[in-house]
């Protein structure tokens, strides 16, 4: 069977070294830094103040507005302060609640199975998800309760569980599928219920045979569920590309998946939803991949939100001395960090430690118009023209003629570019300028 895929894309070296490493639970570190801004949308409002005692799972910050999410204490302890601390996404310091664990790790409310959780109404599911502070765990960290409660005029017929972890190095989703396939499917079941969809696709790339095997074992129990094996290609896991590959529907420009009656959720998010609905467990920890050639203890770890990268590294066996780059997320779209002080947040799908060998520096050369970037662009854009126009400061033209806003910054263009042009940086810059001017 021809595996479905999309147009464009690249094949970076996958380096999925940790696919065979089971998920290990990391201990609670000495201090936790829980940023208030861990999701797309408005930062949460703190509910605690300096000196307060908190319990594990206690809500410490509340969602501020509709597109926002609440935050829970990852463990029990004392709030030392609320202060600016380096943030793994904003690239500068931002407010974080600093918690000193008391070591007891006591629950505020022990997660207990709710009766008849399988029959929860959509409202109940959305509510449970909202209370648990679940956000998209694939990286974008969009508040999940928003995503699973589409407006009345949009109907969703297809739920896609995104197990196509296409970023090199990352194996967290892969492991989740291998170890908790059934929970994932239950999560998908709940999402399907919440949005009233008729079918569920579980999308897994064909380079994850173990996960595929596991899922196909348990999927039989779920009618109207379908396992979809997709081609291994980056960025197969991007929403629009995945939808195109599985359903041949195209999300309109500037639109959302719900415009074509689809909903895409990451496998970990599905698990989080499952836990939130069944046990009322808030999102206080997540599985991430620690990898890269500088990581001595590469593997998949269950980490408390707020654990600093530094702590993760130290608890897993340190790193080699020549690490020169630390990345939050995958190598294609992740964010490089200027310090290891940054904490793990809900959207942290991986921590990559690169040495000189992997994280090579390149001088930007003149574009030779080889147009490889055009060939690989999954959005059908002309990256080289975009960069030309952005460089010339013609941002509106870049948007109107060359679709600047359609770029999803997947980095395929920059990856293949023989001139080592930083397309993504230019595009980010261009978008920022556009925002400023409007």
């Amino acid at each position, binding site marked *: 069977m021809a595996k479905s895929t999309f147009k464009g894309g690249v094949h970076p070296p996958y380096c999925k070294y940790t696919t065979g490493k089971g998920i290990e639970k990391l201990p609670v570190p000495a201090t936790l830094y829980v940023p208030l801004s861990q999701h797309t949308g408005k930062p949460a409002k703190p509910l605690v103040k300096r000196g307060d005692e908190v319990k594990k799972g206690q809500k410490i910050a509340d969602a501020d507005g509709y597109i926002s999410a609440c935050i829970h204490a990852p463990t029990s302890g004392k709030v030392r302060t609320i202060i600016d601390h380096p943030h793994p996404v904003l690239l500068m310091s931002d407010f974080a609640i600093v918690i000193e664990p008391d070591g007891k790790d006591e629950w505020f409310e022990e997660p207990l199975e709710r009766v008849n959780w399988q029959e929860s109404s959509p409202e109940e599911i959305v509510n449970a998800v909202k209370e648990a502070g679940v956000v998209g765990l694939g990286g974008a960290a969009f508040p999940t309760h928003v995503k699973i409660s589409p407006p009345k005029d949009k109907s969703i017929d297809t739920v896609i569980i995104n197990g196509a972890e296409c970023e090199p190095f990352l194996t967290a989703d892969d492991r989740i599928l291998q170890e908790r396939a059934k929970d994932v499917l239950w999560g998908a079941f709940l999402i399907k219920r919440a949005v009233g969809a008729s079918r569920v696709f579980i999308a897994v790339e064909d380079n994850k045979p173990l996960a595929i095997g596991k899922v196909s074992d348990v999927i039989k129990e779920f009618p109207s569920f379908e396992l979809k094996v997709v081609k291994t290609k980056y960025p197969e896991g991007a929403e629009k590309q995945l939808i195109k590959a599985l359903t041949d529907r195209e999300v309109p420009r500037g639109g959302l998946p719900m415009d074509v009656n689809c909903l895409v959720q990451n496998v970990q998010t599905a698990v989080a939803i499952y836990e939130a609905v069944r046990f009322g467990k808030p999102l206080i920890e997540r599985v991430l991949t620690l990898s890269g050639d500088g990581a001595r203890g590469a593997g998949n770890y269950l980490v408390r939100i707020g654990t600093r990268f530094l702590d993760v590294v130290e608890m897993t066996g340190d790193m080699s001395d020549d690490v020169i780059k630390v990345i939050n997320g995958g190598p294609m779209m992740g964010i490089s960090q200027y310090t290891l002080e940054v904490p793990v947040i809900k959207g942290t799908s991986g921590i990559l430690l690169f040495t000189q060998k992997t994280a090579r520096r390149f001088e930007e050369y003149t574009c030779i118009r080889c147009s490889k970037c055009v060939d690989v662009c999954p959005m059908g854009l002309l990256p080289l023209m975009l960069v*030309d*126009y952005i*460089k*010339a400061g*013609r941002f509106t033209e870049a948007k109107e003629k060359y679709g600047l806003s359609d770029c999803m910054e997947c980095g395929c263009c920059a990856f293949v570019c023989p001139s080592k042009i930083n397309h993504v940086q230019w595009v980010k810059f261009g978008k920022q300028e556009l925002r400023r001017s409007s």
Partner: protein
Amino acid sequence: MRPLIIFVAAAITNNFILTYFLGLCPFLGVSARVSSAIGMGFAATFVMTMTAIITNLVDHLILRPLHLEFLQMIVFIFVIAVLVQFVEMVIKKTSPSLYKALGIFLPLITTNCIVLGLALLGAMRNYNLIENTFFGFGAGVGFTIALLLISGIREELEVRDVPKALKGAPITLIIAGLMAFAFMGFSGIISLQ
């Protein structure tokens, strides 16, 4: 067949800009942007076709019978100037939008050597009315083609690292020069009388 050959020759193989150097002055300014190139191209094609018709009539009906060929130049240029002025006024009055799109190029065309050059070349080659019409139309199309090609190139060059001293007219002339190399390939396709 002959009018068609004349058309192709004037439009491509003996392109006025690239082989006769006619019509270069506005060419340098107007070729900077595709939008103005299109406007100018259309306006020029229109005026040139009209000119070809009218000067041919004047030539064959008035000047030649009276043996006043030596007056060709002043009569032609005068007729063209009056014609353009008239067309401009009409467009301005009747369709302001068309005037915005085309009319503003009209004064530029009166003083453009390509128009008079066309009239005189047509007279020199003894074209009849139909041939001359095709000749004028072809020359206009050729002018438009050259203008479009060069403006397309120039718009791209705007975001490129052309040496400062060569920006504008010099690089345009260089492009024209290199295009003249390319168009040399067409020489001999149609040899014209």
